[in-house]
């Protein structure tokens, strides 16, 4: 059996003296979609940062496709196929749409024109605005541009941090359709979301995180029950 696309074992990490993650372990099997859910401040984004090399864990180890990558620099991880789409806007504001796409070719097997073709086919809006400075586009348009990078990177493992944030429902469903398609093509995906329903619909496995620990791991259906319990039962 193939090694998991991404595996975190006993990870502790934080910023300065504050530890945010405590002994977090999770494993994304190759070719699957793994949803990581949980409330604000649970440590989901930090988990993403650790997996992409931006935050060094204080304990534990990270494996990407079977190799140990604890001390690998982020840009080299990116070249090795770890592609993270950050929360917020992962774009270069002072470059045009076209130029942004050009930047994305650094970690893409495709040529510039192929990258443009793919992105514009998926997001026609971007094609209409190809010479607009990315920073002047609307929030959602920027998010589409950021997602194009995932589209063209052909990554080994894709880390998606709250991609639906600030997007119109129609685009969100399109994006999730896209996530589904990418998964079909065999790309492994780790997905962070606040909203369980959309994320669980496309995922194969799911975990819930609270207070820097994994609270539960399981099949999407079980996790959905757990989440409903926690939010609706617990919040009242």
């Amino acid at each position, binding site marked *: 059996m193939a090694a998991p696309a991404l595996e975190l074992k006993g990870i502790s990490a934080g910023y300065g003296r504050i530890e945010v993650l405590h002994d977090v372990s999770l494993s994304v099997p190759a070719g699957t979609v793994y949803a990581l859910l949980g409330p604000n401040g649970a440590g989901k984004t930090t988990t993403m940062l650790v997996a992409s090399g931006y935050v060094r864990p204080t304990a534990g180890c990270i494996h990407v496709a079977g190799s140990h990558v604890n001390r690998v620099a*982020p*840009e080299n991880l990116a070249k090795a196929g770890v592609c993270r789409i950050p929360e917020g806007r992962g774009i*270069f504001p*002072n*470059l045009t749409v076209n130029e942004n796409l050009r*930047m*994305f070719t*650094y*970690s893409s097997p495709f040529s*510039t024109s192929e990258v443009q073709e793919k992105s514009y086919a998926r997001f026609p809006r971007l094609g209409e605005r190809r010479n607009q400075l990315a920073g002047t586009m609307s929030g959602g348009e920027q998010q589409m541009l950021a997602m194009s990078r995932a589209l063209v990177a052909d990554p080994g493992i894709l880390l998606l941090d709250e991609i639906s944030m600030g997007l119109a429902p129609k685009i969100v469903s399109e994006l999730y359709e896209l996530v589904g398609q990418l998964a079909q093509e065999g790309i492994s995906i780790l997905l962070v979301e606040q909203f369980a329903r959309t994320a669980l619909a496309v995922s194969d496995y799911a975990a819930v995180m609270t207070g820097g620990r994994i609270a539960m791991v399981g099949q999407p259906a079980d996790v959905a029950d757990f989440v409903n319990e926690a939010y609706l039962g617990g919040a009242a």
Partner: protein
Amino acid sequence: MDQLLQLTVVGLVVGCVYALTATGLVVTYTTSGIFNFAHGAIGMLGAFSYWQLTVKWHWPVLLALPVVLLVLAPLFGATIERIVMRPLHGASVDVTLVITLGLLLFFLGAANYFWDQGQTRVLPELLASWKPVDIGGVVVTWGQIIIVLAAVGVAIGLRFLFSTTRIGIAMRGVVDDPDLCAMSGASPARIQQLSWAIGAGLAALAGILVAPKVGMSALQLTLLVINGYAAALFGRLKSLPRTAVGGLLLGLLVSYYPVYVAPHLPFSTTFGQLEKAVPMIFLGVLLLFLPSARLRTATTVGRVAPTVPGLRQSLAGGGVMIVLAIALASALSSANLLIAGGMFISALSLLSLVLLTGYSGQTSLCVLTFFGLGAFAMAHSGTSPLGLVWGGLLAAAAGMLVALVTARLRGLYLALATFAFAKGMDVGFFNFKLGSGQSLQLKRFELPLIDTSSEKTFFFLTVVVFVVAAIGVLAVRRGRWGRQLTALNDSPAACATLGVNTTITKVVVFTASAGIAGVAGAMFGAQQEIITPSQFDVLGSLALLLALRIGGINTITGALFGAFTIGLFPEMPQILGHFGVTLPDKVQLTFLLTGIAAISIGRDPDGLGGQVSKLGLRLRQQFGSSSTPAAPSYEEATLVHG
């Protein structure tokens, strides 16, 4: 007609020089977000290395030129990036400005060390042996033609690099988000290093081309680039073609000015003498009338927000300081009292920057101009102590004017506007009114009951003025105003939508700050009893800002530390002398120390004052929990100093 042609040709050549230097500046700015004051100094070092290779060591030009332009300068640029610039990502405007100023001083010091400036050197023009060309009656040397060709070539080459190649696009993109750059698989460090290498190469090219004309003077070559600022601004620090056009326009303007412009202006004799100020006036006008471009917003990386001592604490601190001053006054000799008093006067002018830059985030490079106006008012007040008031008021009025005119500018644009103002005042007022190289005698003010002519008393008086101002500034900081200034610094847009008239707030702060600087200047005049225009030079203002950064930008302690640091640097050789260390004359210790200090700021933008704060915080956390409430509020939190 002949004259017009001649002036046009000269103007175009000069314009190409401006364009070339400005292009280098723009390249560095677009790729690193840093406005590099040291650009000229890098060019100067390039010119001197080239001189060393060709004139001193007799290398052939065809070997020396590529060695300097393609090897030495790029390596040098990459080294600067590695050592100094890398930690600076996201630093505030004033930090980047003072650090590059520090580099400038450091390079000047280094040049003095390697190439004794007392000696005259000649650098022949390129292709000097070729016969000059006659263009419609104007004789043009091949050196000049090469300048034009180089400017055109560089413009085209860079345009190609930045708009069509991937690495060029990456260079423009990395400045906004290095992390994202890495996420996309491109190494931000490499890319930035490359852009500094290119920037340094361009600087060296400009240096080598203009040195034959300007002469091999380290200072002249270093400052030459300042005239290019206007051209860079014309391109809004972004567009290379516009920068080139700006350079040419400026060249033509400078060339036409004495013949076609000045005579037609009112007060033509006055304006005729202001030829040197033309590039600065051009810069000022551009800043006022060009539509404001999107600037990178200030960030708050690594800013400690030190907490402000309460009224009781500041009064106590002030009391302690005055007692110390009495003790010091009786211990020090008259000469040393002058030096110590000078430090407190510097500290007072730094206080004005604490208010303006530290609290409200506006970078001003004209503090010494206000200082000078204060001194000037004092000089015209005879022995009346009202001179202090007039000094403060005159400076405050000037400050208000500057603030009103620059109300819509922020960040680097504001800094450059104040730079232009300072430079313009330098040429158009101080050197003009007092006479370049001249000095103005003045009398110390007299007070009833107190003998101000005694150095002891005057020193004591200086300390009292400082303490009063410091308590005032702290009181501002503590209250509503302090929060408002911070808020304005963090997000002007949000302030406006919460009902704050941001213009008035800015103008008030600017005016108050200028007033403090004016009082400091008046004290300075009274203390020194003689002033010279060079004391109010714009580089001095930059050095003050640097000193404050070294001390700590947003604390009173910072102002004191900063003032002592710059006060001590010039005394260093003597102090070392006491310990039996003598340095060779050519070691310009002040320059080198300032440079090193500046570079260290890049590592820790909070300065010495910030260190003290952090230390205090740590001590408090360890020992003093009893005095800290469980949930400290902003005013009461963390630490004491001041």
